[in-house]
């Protein structure tokens, strides 16, 4: 199901000498067709298989996540059509598709070796995508930063995983869990936990491993940044949750206020707390919308970690609902930034001034995205938060033990409203600078934005559709 994408990517190289715009459209169309085919394939022929003892697993939950990833990829491709930063169209789309297939392998795997390999496939493609704007110094700088941090964190991950292998003698998550289960916490296991958390913490841009995120979000070409913020996040959170919940089962520990026990939950609690506080507070001071989105992504990473930590029956469903809706919202927000950048040449807050009078449809979309990120009902972001918080409190072990973290998270989301409103204030309230360069927003780029905004509204008003699918799939997978 994945190979279709890779083969297709090669085809694109044939279209060398056509006009740039035309090639962009053709390339995107072919890639989208590929994504649709593979999504349709998964829908039509649901498989339940287990290749090579868990090296690759296919079940309904994973298929659902993969379809979600494909949808995000399709929107990323749509966003790419209107860009003009590169003439290497074929390579560009091929890389996006490669990254997408890496993510899908990542989601499918239950074997730490395979997880590491697909993690690297995804990351390497994303490094190159970040650097793809060869005319921009920022893009190169961001990519270098991303690459260096990524390399170090990959080393950490590998170290953690090899410690695990040493402890358990197996690369399969379930067998690892069986081997490490014991009354106490082995110091080696503690080291493995910390190393793994660092590695994945980097992938999901959780503080204090977030330093690459603002630069990459700002410097990378917009579709790449959007893809890093959406698809990569969904896949990494899924596998993060799997490794923690399955692989370290039995070493949870307790993060309750009065019920501290060593294990991986306290570690994650600290990372989550740091992400929420740092992300939200640092976002207050940003003047560039892209950097603002980066810090908000860090903060959202903190909320999502809350979903990783809880072990209620539906917490994985809550986490995936949150991650997917967040991905859609972030994609949309980046799409708006891209339109604005074309219209007024920058992504600073002041470049958004008076947008509502120049491009009402785009502004309305941005209103939806920002309010959803802030967690205002009836948009998807609010329901996601509610769901995650409710699950966090209903964990079996210490019941209300996570209450302190939930309170902090809700308080922090009140802080976040301020900076989201700052963006909307520029759009709706501030008057546009005197000579209004009334560049009409390109129609083609508005279509995906409107679709995304509609999706965010629809998923918020009728969350049952997606939630029901995820809960059913989680139940079926026997988690």
């Amino acid at each position, binding site marked *: 199901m994945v190979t279709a994408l890779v083969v297709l990517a090669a085809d694109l190289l044939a279209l060398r000498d056509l006009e740039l715009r035309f090639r962009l459209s053709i390339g995107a169309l072919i890639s989208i067709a590929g994504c649709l085919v593979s999504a349709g394939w998964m829908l039509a022929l649901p498989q339940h298989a287990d290749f090579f003892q868990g090296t690759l697993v296919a079940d309904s939950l994973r298929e659902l996540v993969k379809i979600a990833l494909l949808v995000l990829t399709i929107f990323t491709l749509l966003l790419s059509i209107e860009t003009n930063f590169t003439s290497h169209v074929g390579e560009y789309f091929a890389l996006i598709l490669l990254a997408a297939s890496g993510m899908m392998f990542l989601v499918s795997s239950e074997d730490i070796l395979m997880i590491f390999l697909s993690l690297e496939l995804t990351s390497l493609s994303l490094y190159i995508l970040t650097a793809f704007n060869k005319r921009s110094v920022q893009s190169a700088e961001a990519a270098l930063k991303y690459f260096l941090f990524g390399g170090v964190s990959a080393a950490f991950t590998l170290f953690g995983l090899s410690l695990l292998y040493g402890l358990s003698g197996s690369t399969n998550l379930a067998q690892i869990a069986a081997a490490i289960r014991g009354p106490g916490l082995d110091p080696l296991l503690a080291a493995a936990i910390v190393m793994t958390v660092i590695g994945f913490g980097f992938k999901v841009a959780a503080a204090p491993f977030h330093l690459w995120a603002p630069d990459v979000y700002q410097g990378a070409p917009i579709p790449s940044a959007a893809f890093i913020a959406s698809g990569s996040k969904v896949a990494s959170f899924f596998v993060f949750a799997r490794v923690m919940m399955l692989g370290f089962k039995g070493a949870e520990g307790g993060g309750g206020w009065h019920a501290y026990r060593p294990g991986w939950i306290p570690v994650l609690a600290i990372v989550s707390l740091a992400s929420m506080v740092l992300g939200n507070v640092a976002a207050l001071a940003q003047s560039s919308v892209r950097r603002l989105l980066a810090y908000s992504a860090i903060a959202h990473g903190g909320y999502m970690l809350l979903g990783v930590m809880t072990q209620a029956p*539906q917490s994985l469903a809550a986490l995936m609902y949150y991650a997917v809706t967040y991905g859609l919202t972030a994609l949309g927000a980046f799409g708006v930034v891209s339109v604005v950048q074309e219209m007024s040449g920058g992504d600073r807050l002041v470049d958004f001034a008076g947008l*509502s009078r120049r491009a009402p449809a785009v502004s309305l979309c941005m209103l939806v995205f920002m*309010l959803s990120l802030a967690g*205002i*009902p*009836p948009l998807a972001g*609010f*329901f996601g938060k*509610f*769901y995650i*918080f*409710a699950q966090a*409190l*209903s964990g079996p072990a210490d019941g*209300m033990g996570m*209450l302190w973290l*939930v*309170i902090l998270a*809700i*308080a922090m*989301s*009140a802080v976040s*409203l*301020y900076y989201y*409103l700052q963006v*909307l*204030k520029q759009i*709706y*309230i501030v008057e546009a600078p005197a000579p209004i360069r009334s560049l009409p927003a390109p129609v083609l780029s508005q279509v995906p934005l409107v679709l995304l905004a509609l999706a965010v509204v629809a998923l918020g008003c009728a*969350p*049952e559709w997606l*939630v*029901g699918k995820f*809960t059913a799939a989680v139940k079926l997978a026997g988690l």
Partner: protein
Amino acid sequence: MLAWTIYSSFLGVAVLMLLPRTNARLARTVALLTALLGLGFALGGMLDAKIGEVHTITRVPWIPSLGLEYHLAADGISLTLVLLTGLAAVAGILFSWNIEHRAKEFFAFYLALIGGVYGVFLSFDLFLLFVFYEIAIIPKYFIIAIWGSTRREYGAMKLALYSFVGSAMVLIGLVAAYVVSGGHTMSIFELAKFPFPHGFQMWAFPLVFVGFAILAGLWPFHTWAPTGHVAAPTAASMLLAGVVMKLGAYGCLRVAMTLFPEGMAPWGTHILGFGSWRDVFSLLAVIGILYGALVALVQKDFKFIIGYSSVSHMGFVLLGLMTLSQVGMSGAVLQMFSHGLLAGLLFAVVGRMVYDRTHTRDLADLQQMDLGTLFPFTAVIFTIASVASMGLPGFSGFVAELQVLLGAWQAFPTLTVVSGLGLLVGVAYMLRALQRVFFADREPAPVAARSSGNGHLSLEPISIPERLGAVLLVGVSLAIGLYPRLLLDWIIPSFNSGLFGGLPKGPP
């Protein structure tokens, strides 16, 4: 039928968004029609409903996997407030007839706010209630920040953040209640019956109560109210004071007090002289009454006077709720209704009739203008509104405050005396404003003043929509004042329904 109050408002928003951008008159008409339709549905719903029982309108599963329902229902309290919302919405649109700048967007935000408010009053599923509660926050921000006056961006942001912090506190309490009760339902009926542990109620009650009370202007969390009211355009001040502050008080009653009645039980020990959360909040309410009145007494800005008077009057609502006696609580609900009308009227006079014409709200400047002779109609209306808000018998405010004080007398005699003092100060600040703005003794040079300041004569006369709106509000207030049973017959039986069964009864 009542449910259509919500749907018609949001439909109105959708229609407005499709209208051409330049035609302000069309936007106004559509908005007015929508508001009238909402009021009509509210009245129709009242006729439909039976007195004394909770009347379920719609109840369908919304998110079955979490047990959340789309559950609209109404009892006498909701009906009273829905009616108030309808009246305030119509009056607000009549008083914003002169909006020309981005009129379409203004009315779209306005109707979205109204729709959210209707939704809160009619939701009997807490999740749904919270959704509508938050829907009401965002339009306020935009209305104030785009169409407001003095320090509008500051006032708007302050208002939005206060509301959001309050709703964050409410959200914590609601999520916790949902989880503690087993995570099956958010229905108010079910949760009101659920025996929450005593310790849990002891922290959840103050959390949720304060969360809602922030929006009701509880001292010391009231500071958003004066700045927000002053910054807001006329219609928004009318709605803020008239309806939005009621959202907070309604939430206190409907959510905090219904779900966690044991939170008001005595602690068993005394800390700084307080024996329970009830003592704490009633003291804060009385401080609000007195503080609001005293601060209003020394304001120089006409609109700030009304803004602080709102804080003072809302203190009566919260005090009435804390009495826990039937007379006090029904007085509180009646006070919500009455203050909604009167504060709306006062803000309309200040914002639309005076400020939009004179472009100043400074008492010293207004004193020079001889508004009493220029606008006799305004002077009459303001006189009526201010004596009504002082609590003159015959108007709704009198009945309501009397009931609150009666209830409070049984519960907290000392505090009642103090709040009576607040009433006295209330008379003083209203008379001061009335005298200085409309009936000032000026230096005997009226002819010279007029010839030099030609602007005075060219002031636009009071328009028909304004007269209609003012007459509407005064008429309803008078009707309720003369025959309060019109509403009390709805309100009082509601307190006997099973929902309030858990409240500690009577005077302690």
